[in-house]
């Protein structure tokens, strides 16, 4: 177990470092930082002065390590637009996005897992076909468009729900529905596939042979085995939702990290963009690390291999 843990942790650290180098490189690709800091009408002397002030005249490697050491201490630099510390900006916007992503994942699991189980149990029945049809539609619908359709139907025509802002829980209903459709089809398919495999397995036939009730067979014997990959997928999906909420946040005017990223990209505020990319990747690596360790704890085949 410890061997596996150490190895997995080492890889995770390497991935984080590589990602930080890439997002740092992205910032440098965006053009001359000193020029954009100095503004449109700056003279050559002013640009040079700023370049020296911010240390942009030093070798890239030195600049990277400078940035990395600050980042480890929680200092991600300052926004070029508002001059606020990037770390504070991200923390202040993170809450909305976390709420949205967790709600969406919970909604997706609450719908997709039971659907997947029923689809597998009643294979080729109408419920199987209906849930597969929904999965096909769910993975084909563009989410920005789906968001607009929901706004039109529930916000404008029926007037049931607010269409923008983040003041109350009602503001999160439509964004959650939109975002959850992005991960629902995958979770449904994986649950269904896992259940079908489990239902054909020897231990389930054994459970039937013992005369156990269908509920016990399905939910106590088959589902726990089918659900293992779903746990991993959920961790991956949460990371994906945190980084993928940019469209939904912009359509519903939610002030989360996605809309912060979008604004910063449009304003070429690259210290903020770079840090968001880095923080989101870091969270993703952390989530997958935790889910891998949970899986290794549950399933000895993983940790002993």
């Amino acid at each position, binding site marked *: 177990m410890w061997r596996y843990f150490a190895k997995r942790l080492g890889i995770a650290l390497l991935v984080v470092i590589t990602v930080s180098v*890439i997002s740092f490189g992205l910032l440098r690709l965006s053009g001359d930082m000193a020029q954009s800091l100095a503004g449109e009408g700056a003279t050559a002397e002013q640009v040079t002065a700023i370049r020296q002030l911010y240390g942009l005249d030093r070798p890239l490697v030195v600049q990277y390590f400078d940035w990395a050491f600050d980042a480890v201490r929680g200092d991600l630099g300052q926004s070029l637009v508002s001059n606020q510390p990037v770390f504070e900006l991200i923390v202040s916007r993170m809450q909305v996005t976390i709420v949205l992503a967790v709600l969406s994942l919970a909604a997706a699991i609450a719908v997709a897992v039971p659907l997947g189980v029923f689809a597998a149990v009643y294979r080729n029945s109408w419920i199987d076909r209906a849930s597969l049809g929904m999965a096909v539609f769910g993975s084909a619908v563009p989410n920005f468009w789906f968001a607009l359709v929901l706004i039109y139907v529930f916000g404008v025509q029926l007037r049931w729900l607010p269409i923008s802002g983040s003041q109350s829980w009602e503001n999160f209903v439509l964004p959650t529905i939109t975002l959850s459709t992005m991960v629902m089809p995958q979770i449904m398919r994986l649950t269904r596939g896992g259940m079908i495999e489990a239902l054909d397995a020897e231990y389930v036939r054994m459970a039937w042979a013992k005369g156990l009730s269908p509920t016990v067979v399905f939910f106590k014997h088959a589902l726990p085995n089918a659900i293992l990959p779903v746990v991993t997928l959920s961790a991956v999906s949460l990371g994906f939702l945190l980084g993928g909420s940019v469209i939904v946040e912009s359509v519903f005017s939610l002030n989360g990290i996605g809309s912060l990223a979008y604004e910063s990209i449009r304003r070429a505020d690259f210290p903020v963009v770079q840090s968001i990319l880095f923080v989101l990747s870091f969270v993703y690596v952390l989530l997958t690390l935790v889910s891998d360790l949970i899986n290794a704890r549950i399933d000895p085949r993983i940790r002993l291999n």
Partner: protein
Amino acid sequence: MSNAPAPLDNMDIALPTPRQQSWAMAKRHLGLQIGLAIVLVATFAALFAPLLAPADPYAQDLTARLAPTIWQEGGTWAHILGTDGFGRDVLSRLIYGTQVTMIVGFGAAVFSGLIGTTLGIIGGYLGGRVDAVIIFLINVKLAMPGVLIALSLVSIFGGSLLSITLILSLLFWDRFAVVTRTATQQVRTREFIAAAECSGASKSWILLREILPNIANQIIVIGSLEMAIAILVEAALSFLGLGIRPPMSSWGILVSEARDFMFYKPHLVLIPGLAICILVIGINLLGDGIRDVTEPQGRN
């Protein structure tokens, strides 16, 4: 005696070849046929847009703004799907938008397929350190938030067709790599690979002539999936204003432009969105169909 079963060694029934079996299945596979039809229609529309479009997609006519569709009151055959906020013909813009959609979708699927398949078969065949590096690359790729990276790269390199296609290819190669790597590992243990190795075939010969043809159907299936995803992401980028630039017509731009009129002209939002949905479903049906037909045991 005439009813006696024929001795086995005399059996003269020709078993259908795999190709014939696939063909017979394809003829009964409704999903495959619907998907193929949708994809063919979209390809046709993209190729012959100048001939098919009833009007110039860029010609503005401010006297004919927001004209109704043919099925709404006051609709005319001159503008079957009505006009947009600048008086441009919606049907023509939709048809021209197919070009962007198909070029970006197909281009991104091909390029990302090249990157991912190269990495996947090399890692799967060679194993060891090379494989470890490739797994590491896949992990790095997975850790990065794709849509945000795409948005930042487009803001740096601009929203031309080529740059968007290449940026999306850089983002979607991981699934190709994962699938071809596993498939290669399975094929590698088969006897014909050992035979090729024994007869002194070079590594590149084995990878390209022995392994690649045997995993081609899986590559096509992933390709269809990635094409569908690339189309959705391109539309989303264009919708956010960081993709194809107006006045060029992309389905994402059509939705974005129609947003201002959404409350009283909802069809302007509905039509391009439905077009995206239908095309993506078509591509997915086609991909699933190809998987079913080329690999009968892969069903369910």
